[in-house]
């Protein structure tokens, strides 16, 4: 109201009371008119001001809001959203299956899910498992049923596949030669009419639901022994079921959620996906008392062998004292299935873009994995390195927990390894015994961070050098005379046979499985008290009895039928690298003879007939001084003819074996 005062129109009445002024204004038409006009103008003015304020306010609010939408916080990278697969409402899948001598392929709804036209590869029966609700490929296998025993593997696999899954079969080249009755019956039970009569070089395709209907089957008979059947192309439709029907109804827990995710994606892992009574995926092994390796990261180096990885992780997670949070699985390549396995167990996995080829690829993968391990666990002083094709014993961590202090204290140690190259069932006996060896066995070993960071990482072989990482690590330039600690009884067991570095033939036929799995868990108490062969502690067994050197050391009678004694024999070993006699001896003892392993200063220690058995190389070994003068070291000549024939492949194989 005060604004009225400066108004010249009402100036004369300034001093009157408001009431009177109003009265006066009423009487005075002109003044009233003027007053109204002024009032209206003022009102308009106020409106304008309020308007402006409102606009300003709104703008500010809008601006603030915009700010709050936090452009600052937007991910800089334009995340190109992977287009989600449109919800598949389609109820029918078109499936095309082709079988011929040189090529097979399977297409589901126009997408090729299998194509194999490589020469000399992929012979046999290809099997694809599809999810009956989504149509996703859950497993792809090829069984070379031209060769023996592959049909058994196929039967095993088919039996593991859950009921209701869609199975697609197609033959490449030849698939019937070793397809036995049992396998044929299984195929027949799946609904195949042709399978029982499949014969040499027939072409065959089949699509059916396990335990249900048959969607199609085509077959082309081979007209003669020397020719193949005509290529067959089967086109058929598969009716999808609802998701609920394709899943098991496990109780809704975190674990089962993981299980469900896994089981709807992949097949071939047996009872882990069984609806009734599935195998556990959490193991809760007993914790270790005073576990010194609880905080040591475990790097599992893996390729694309998800079934192996599954087996490996099961054994790892069942070991006493395992700490799942410290486990990282490094997968060489963008393979989905190994990652699915890792996620099933709730572990963390890292995929690695393959660099280089063959051995160099493995070597680069190792480097990346080890570097990443120490990055992820910057506090760690050690890392446990495992591979996907190892089983580890229940007391693996107990073994490490009790021996890791050696690596910490003793600079002359290169590693602790869970594997004894000479630890066969007939040569390993004492779960509490550790050895010190000049070789590096690998297969489950502990790496010191300082060794890796200061020495190995900076000069790790570059991708263009096609070296084996482990051969490189064993080179004198790297090892620098340092030694490894190994147990008498191995704590790991190498079950893999299709890996790059394992020659299946040697493994299967020549080597009985190591005794790693025979361990009793009570060994953990005794390891620390057992002979720890560090330099200071290691003393030559003076109580050892010298064996009768006139006998043939290959004969069983060479070692008396006693138990728990210590025997020593002396062999000829002219200089440090002279392993002629040792190699022959190793051969007849049926232990590792393809290269020299498990030695320490010209001494080998193993068990024979439950007696500790020492072999000393004279005169190269410093222990030669313990040889009684009367004893002549045994010399065994390599068989003249065989040498050429055996030595060459032996060296090659040795280079391949890790």
């Amino acid at each position, binding site marked *: 109201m005060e604004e009225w005062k400066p108004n010249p129109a009402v100036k004369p009445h300034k001093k009157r009371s408001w009431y009177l002024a109003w009265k006066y204004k009423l009487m005075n038409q002109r003044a009233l*008119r003027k007053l*109204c*006009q002024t*009032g*209206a*103008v003022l*009102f*308009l003015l106020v*409106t304008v001001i*309020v*308007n402006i304020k*409102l606009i300003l*306010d*709104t703008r500010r*609010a809008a601006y603030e*809001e915009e*700010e*709050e*939408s*936090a452009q*600052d*916080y*937007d*991910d*800089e990278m334009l*995340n190109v*959203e992977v287009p989600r697969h449109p919800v598949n409402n389609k109820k029918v899948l078109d499936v095309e299956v082709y079988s011929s001598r040189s090529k097979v392929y399977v297409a589901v709804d126009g997408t090729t899910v299998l194509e194999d036209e490589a020469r000399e590869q992929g012979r046999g029966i290809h099997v694809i498992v599809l999810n009956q609700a989504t149509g996703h490929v859950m497993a792809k296998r090829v069984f070379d049923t031209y060769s023996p025993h592959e049909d058994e593997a196929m039967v095993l696999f088919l039996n593991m596949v859950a009921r209701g899954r869609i199975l697609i079969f197609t033959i490449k080249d030849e698939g019937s030669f070793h397809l036995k009755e049992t396998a044929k019956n299984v195929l027949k039970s799946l609904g195949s009419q042709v399978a029982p009569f499949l014969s040499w070089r027939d072409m065959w395709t089949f699509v059916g639901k396990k335990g249900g209907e048959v969607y199609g089957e085509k077959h082309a008979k081979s007209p003669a022994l020397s020719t193949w059947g005509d290529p067959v192309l089967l086109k058929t439709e598969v009716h999808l079921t609802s998701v609920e029907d394709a899943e098991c109804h496990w109780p809704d827990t*975190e674990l089962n*959620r993981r299980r469900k995710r896994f089981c709807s994606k992949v097949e071939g892992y047996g009872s882990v996906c069984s609806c009734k009574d599935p195998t556990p995926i959490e193991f809760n092994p007993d914790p270790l008392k005073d576990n010194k390796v609880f905080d040591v990261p475990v790097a599992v180096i893996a390729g694309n062998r998800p079934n192996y990885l599954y087996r490996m992780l099961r054994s790892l997670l069942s070991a006493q004292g395992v700490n799942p*949070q410290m486990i990282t699985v*490094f997968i060489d390549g*963008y393979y989905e299935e190994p990652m699915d396995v890792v996620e099933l167990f709730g572990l*963390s*996995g*890292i*995929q*690695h*873009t393959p*660099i280089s080829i063959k051995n160099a690829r493995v070597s*680069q993968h190792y480097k*990346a994995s080890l*570097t*990443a391990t*120490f*990055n*992820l*666990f*910057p*506090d760690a002083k050690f890392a446990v390195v495992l591979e996907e094709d190892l089983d580890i014993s229940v007391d693996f961590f107990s073994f490490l927990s009790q021996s890791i202090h050696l690596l910490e204290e003793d600079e002359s140690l290169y590693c602790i390894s869970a594997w004894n190259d000479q630890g066969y069932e007939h040569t390993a006996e004492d779960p509490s015994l550790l050895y010190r060896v000049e070789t590096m066995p690998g297969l489950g070993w502990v790496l010191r961070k300082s060794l890796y*960071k*200061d020495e190995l990482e*900076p*000069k790790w072989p*570059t991708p263009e050098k096609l070296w084996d990482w482990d051969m490189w690590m064993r080179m004198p330039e790297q090892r620098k005379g340092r030694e490894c600690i190994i147990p008498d009884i191995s704590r790991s067991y190498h079950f893999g046979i299709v890996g790059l570095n394992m020659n299946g033939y040697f493994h299967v036929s020549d080597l009985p499985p190591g005794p790693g799995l025979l361990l009793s868990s009570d060994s953990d108490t005794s390891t620390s008290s057992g002979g720890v062969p560090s330099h200071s502690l290691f003393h030559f067994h003076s109580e050892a009895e010298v064996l009768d050197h006139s006998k043939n050391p290959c004969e069983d009678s060479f070692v008396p039928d006693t138990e728990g004694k210590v025997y020593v024999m002396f062999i000829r070993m002219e200089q440090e690298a002279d392993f002629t006699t040792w190699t022959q001896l190793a051969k007849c003892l049926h232990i590792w003879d393809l290269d020299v392993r498990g030695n320490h200063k010209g001494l080998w220690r193993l068990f024979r007939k439950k007696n500790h058995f020492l072999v000393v190389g004279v005169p190269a070994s410093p222990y030669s001084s313990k040889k009684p003068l009367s004893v002549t070291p045994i010399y065994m000549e390599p068989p003249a003819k065989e040498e050429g024939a055996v030595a060459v492949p032996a060296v090659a194989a040795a280079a391949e074996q890790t």
Partner: protein
Amino acid sequence: MQKINRNVVLALLSLTSLVFLLFQLCYYKFYLSQKNGAAFSKGRGSHSGQDSTRWHVVRKFLGLISSHNIPVYLIDPLILGLVDKDIEQIRSSPDGPSPECKYFCAPRDFTTFALLDKTWKHDAGLFRTAEKMGFQWLKIINKDPRLDGMDDLSGMEIPLHYIFKLASHAIHLVVFYERSGNFLWHGPLRLKQHMDRKFVPFRKLHFGRYPGAYEKPELLLVSIDDLKVQIPKNPSSFLEEMSHSRFLECRYREARAFFQLYPDDASLDAVEFRKKAKSLLHLAALTLNNLGVKFWLSSGTCLGWFRQCNVIPHSKDVDLGIFIRDYKADIIPAFQKAGLPLKHKFGKVEDSLELSFQGEGDVKLDIFFFYEEDDHIWNGGTQAKSGKKFKYLFPKFTLCWTEFVELKVHVPCETLQYVEANYGPEWKVPVKAWDWKSSPFNVQDNGIWPIDEWDNVIQIY
């Protein structure tokens, strides 16, 4: 007639504007109330009802966390600021009931807690319980920087931030990771496309604009406002640390591209030099940190970090920068004690100071002192035989943390400008023949030391 018309027009106008005004007022009110209704009052004008909301939300959150055995600690700067004032009293009476709600009742949108990643198991059950308790939650994940430097490793993305929202209050949980170099790191908060940008007013968060680097804090369990929480043992030093915690990740991708162009030197000499430079840098960092002297990677060492995330193998020394205001006379004896004898000392504290220490095996540690002017920063150089002075000019910069050869060190935040000032626009091309007097892009002649000062400003050992 005219006058009446004018009156009518005015009256009409007034009426319309009145209606308009009313409409606008209504709209304004509606608009504001809608904003407030979105569970987030802007904190403007405190509502008495909100006070206890915050306290209740925090209490619920702490209950949730402890039921899953997850150790979190309070890092909310506003509360820690208040706590710091009463720290003695809080320390001495850890259990006493508090008479009034002093800390958790100030109306705020957020309370910030920290979580050490390795102390929990990423248990999804936490979130289900949280939902049952009425929390809405948001998880911000991103790439794992610890794998970023690696050739093409792709791990799972890691959670960097969690936000738990209940009623009008939100808990911001910052996840800290241990990094090589013995420090804790938290990531930036970046929203992905599909995320709800309005979940909370992200701008107001105290953490997440930049990644940050922190020392591992010692914790203290206290009871404030009848809530038991862990706080950093020394809140004021935590707050100090927070104020300049910004962390820069090395530019690994660019470094890889650099190595594509100029393959890395993997010769034995290079390996050896890198090893020595790394241990020299570790020793220098230890010595200076013990003295409390702030330093950063300078010159060639900084270039090495910026360009290739590693020590440049053909550089012959390690270069550090220190602001002259941080100079301490103890620096020289401290280095000598650490086994690094002084090699030369050029200049004086007032002008162009430069120290050089002899590290193991011919590797030299150069420390340049930087002088701040109004619009630039400079350091000096001295040629021993001629007494000539040089000046190297840099644009102003601030310091950020980074990780370098397993060490948490400072680098200029404006690294590109710094490196470009020093090495010119061609800094990406390796130069092996380097003359400190003429090669730098930013070198200027700065006269000559008066002869009578030479004994003092040119000391060679």
